[in-house]
């Protein structure tokens, strides 16, 4: 037992002792917290770095945006609307 039994305790240390099972209860909560916080941190980190990369990429080619050739550009309206389709006769 980490904290022993039968001696007078402050309420706080009694709480920490978990009825003598501290060595099992606290690691359980600790592991859960570690995994959950770790996942969240990893997610936020990849999101931040991804956004930074995207900004850098977009910044390097600002002029090249869509609508320079409206119907055939990559917009959904082109996918929806009947686009120019020329089948040239040979």
């Amino acid at each position, binding site marked *: 037992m980490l904290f022993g039994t039968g001696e007078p305790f402050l309420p706080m240390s009694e709480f920490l002792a978990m009825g003598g099972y501290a060595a099992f209860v606290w690691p359980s909560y600790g592991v859960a917290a570690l995994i959950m916080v770790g996942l969240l941190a990893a997610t936020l980190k990849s999101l931040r770095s991804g956004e930074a990369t995207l900004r850098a990429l977009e910044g390097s080619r600002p002029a090249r*945006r869509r609508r320079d050739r409206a119907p*055939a550009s990559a*917009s*959904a309206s082109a996918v929806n609307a009947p*686009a120019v389709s020329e089948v040239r006769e*040979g």
Partner: protein
Amino acid sequence: MPVFTGSELTCLRGDRLVFTGLDFRVAPGEALLLLGPNGSGKSSLLRMMAGLLKPFRGRLAWDGAPVPDDPDGHRAKIHYVGHLDAVKPVLTAAENLAFWAGLGGAADPRASALAALDRLGVPQIAGVPGRYLSAGQKRRLNLARVLAAPAPLWLLDEPSVALDRAAVALLEGIIAEHRAAGGMVAVSTHADIAMPGARELHLDDFTPVTGGNAFDDDAFGDGGIEGEDAA
């Protein structure tokens, strides 16, 4: 013999829009020549016609009957020759070919395999295992598949690669014969394959200028798919 059509075809590879709004039509006896630079989607269109690639939008049909309604029937109507030669190194050329002929429904696979090799001018390789064949011989063996079992529509992706001038002339003759008998052909090519009266389809006409992206906000801006998303 039915007419094969595609309408409003859109091809999406990953997130890249390869072509959009593409229409084509092949009637019996006709040939379709696919032209365009690398990456314009010639191979993708042929794979789409074959049924390997699902069109993101648009539809393929035989006489107006959509292909997805009868995929087995569609596969029975086509021959596809791609970039890879599908030659097994441990089987002889005749065995390789006879297998595909039998799978395609030839009555006597072995006889039609030998006849097809003969027609492509390589009867001498019939008993040679695949691993000893040269690139050109493998190519001819692969092309011989279209003759070994009958199918109305041939889809040939760069068939002239690795072929010498004489073999290309042979191929032109075979295609002409097939068309004369009411067959259809769609061929993509860099080099010239003479196909009198073939329709030309320039794929770069349908390729968007910028790379499209299904996950790009702009691709869904003004109007968007549901017509309500002005971002």
